[in-house]
């Protein structure tokens, strides 16, 4: 077993574009759940709306990159509005069920054969990333062992993470953010101070949703393809695992949570595959080893929630629930 290789590939996950996408989406969930107490179980839907909004506007309408980006952001805002109108007045578990249902509706719609010319159905869409890589300022060559494309997407992805983290941090220490935290703690108290709770919740839902849409784009760009199977309910649950790992009501928590999530997944995969190849483990095959990792994710999510709901960085006083 080559420990050097296993460690290197696990370390590579720390700054991979997928980790950046998870960090962004989990940051959106932190705005929803950590700061506002909104139980959004449809973050995968927001990511899908962002990814498909960008891909379809690029492929079907041939718009330039930044227009596609704008369309993705607008589409996710509209999605948030549509979700928020019926549910934000209701109890938390209703919002959870409606958001998870809405995310599945999005996935069914982009999967259906009826819309194959637009969405590519189950095969998804590809070859929409040209406009993005055309902006690559880095000449060809090796950057820390990566080619210029890989390096560019990492710079953009993590740059975006940094910008969004700063914005969320500034927002949450502003008066607006304090109202939001107040809503999380006691909605009625905030309402009695004359604040429009509904409007604040809606704004939080939209901001977190836009972060999800950006995450969807960062997720698809390095792959050069968007496929509906990637946006199932499991994605949302993995994001919750990242968020809970790092800490709910924190800015850096989701980012570090996403890093830990992917490093641990990569490490367990490397070690399990190594053990299987060297013959030390015979009761597993490589397919089962992949499943074992997801069993671990599920168990980790349960244990985290039960024994350390505040995560690595979180403050127990800042939990969205008592």
């Amino acid at each position: 077993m080559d420990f050097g290789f296993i460690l290197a590939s696990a370390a590579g996950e720390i700054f991979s574009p997928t980790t950046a996408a998870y960090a962004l989406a989990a940051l959106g969930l932190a705005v929803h759940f950590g700061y506002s107490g909104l139980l959004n179980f449809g973050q995968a839907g927001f990511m899908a709306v962002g990814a498909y909004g960008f891909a379809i506007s690029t492929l079907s309408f041939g718009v330039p990159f930044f227009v596609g980006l704008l369309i993705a952001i607008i589409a996710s805002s509209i999605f948030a509005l549509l979700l928020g109108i019926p549910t934000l007045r209701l109890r938390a578990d209703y919002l959870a069920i409606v958001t998870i249902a809405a995310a599945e509706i999005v996935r069914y719609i982009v999967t259906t054969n009826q819309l194959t010319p637009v969405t590519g159905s189950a095969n998804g869409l590809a070859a929409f990333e040209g406009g993005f890589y055309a902006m690559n300022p880095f000449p060809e060559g090796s950057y820390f062992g990566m080619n210029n494309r890989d390096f560019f997407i990492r710079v953009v992805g993590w740059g975006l993470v940094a910008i969004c983290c700063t914005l969320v941090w500034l927002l949450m220490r502003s008066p607006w953010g304090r109202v939001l935290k107040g809503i999380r703690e006691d909605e009625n108290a905030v309402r009695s101070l004359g604040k429009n709770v509904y409007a604040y919740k809606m704004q939080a839902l939209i901001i977190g949703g836009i972060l999800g849409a950006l995450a969807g784009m960062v997720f698809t760009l390095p792959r050069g393809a968007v496929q509906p199977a990637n946006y199932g309910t499991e994605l949302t649950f993995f994001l919750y695992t990242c968020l809970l790992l790092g800490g709910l009501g924190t800015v850096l928590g989701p980012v570090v949570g996403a890093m830990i999530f992917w490093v641990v997944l990569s490490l367990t995969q490397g070690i399990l595959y190594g053990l299987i190849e060297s013959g030390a483990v015979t009761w597993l095959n490589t397919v089962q080893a992949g499943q074992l990792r997801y069993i671990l994710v599920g168990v980790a999510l349960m244990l985290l929630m039960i024994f350390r709901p505040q995560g690595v960085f979180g403050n127990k006083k800042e939990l969205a629930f008592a």
Partner: protein
Amino acid sequence: MRLLGAISASILAILLVTAPASQAASPSPTPSPSNQTFQNNISGFLRDDTRAPLAGVTITAKSGDFTGTTKSAANGSWNIGVPQQGTYTVELDESTLPEGIKLADGQENPRDVTFSQTSNLSVIFAFGKGIVVQQQDFGQNLLNRLVAGLSFGLLLALASVGLSLIFGTTGLTNFAHGEMVTLGAVLVFAFNAIGLPFWLALILSVLGGGLFGYAQDRGLWRPLRRRGTGLVPMMIVSIGLALAVRYVIQFYFGGATQQLPFAQSPEIQLGPVSISPNNLWSLGISAVVIALIGIVLLKTRLGKATRAVADNPALAAASGIDVDAVIRLVWITGGMLASLGGILWAYYRPGVTFDMGSAILLLIFAGVTLGGLGTVFGALIGSVIVGIFVELTTVFGLAADLKYVGALFIMIVVLLFRPQGILGRRERVG
């Protein structure tokens, strides 16, 4: 019925033995991948107008770059593994048909077929002179779908009633309920595979579901209730549990679609409705079980205690009801009902997969929410509405692969206008 079952079981056995062999023998121009590499199948039986099987007929399925070819086995069965669900063009090579056998008039060939959520797709070709493929008229189709929808709705109701009872008594929105549904079907498959008789496998699986419910409550939910864990954290714990259990099942069961015994059943004509015997059994079983649950809840002391706990646990405890015992019983009943629902769902689709329960989890939620969270009879009505709605939307022109969307959409719309659901009470909405 038993004879019919035995026949279809033997057909299944033959299919398992002969299908790969016939495929290996077929000299196809494109490499024909073995069925084991794919999780999705297009399959069917070829029988002529006297119901005699047609062997050695070449059938091709095409979609994009993918081409799969097979020959029908000695019993007329054929099966093509395909990489993903979608629309396929299925063509029967008429030159390979035996002498004197012709496709029926009006039988489309090649024809386009589309997967609808399940990983197995049956394609029927009709043969024989004088047999005309009936273009089903609208009313007939509507009636058939209505009965199928009722059957589907009632099996959904089995799972929803359990979910709703658990929600009513403990406040938990249990995202792991889908895995309890899967467990029932997987257990039947496992017990049957180790050679137990079918009826024993059924009983053991339902009991196994009850045991799983008990174990969940004993090992996880009761300690969490004692700790005073909030409802939202418990909901997230249930998601973790769902992920863990789903992949544990996949770990042992694998990713492929398996069939339970007697899963193949030709449709029979019952008055104006054509329905498969399996669907008919499913309809009857779920109706009887739900009626029993209703009687227990309304007429017995136990049922009264359960309703009291659902209404107000503290008050119920103060009036001498053992709340923990009631909740334990609710978990056991919920597990058994979900397990039974899962078995029926495996026949309805048909097929057993590791994620079959999570595939209908949202429909179960939709049924429960439509009827009103926490109300048992609401869950029943809501599920039947969802089941019928899912089946009827295809009659009114919605594509088969979008049929779940309608039900989920209706749920959201109902929440907009009547958030407490059909039978729910205002104060629960909060």
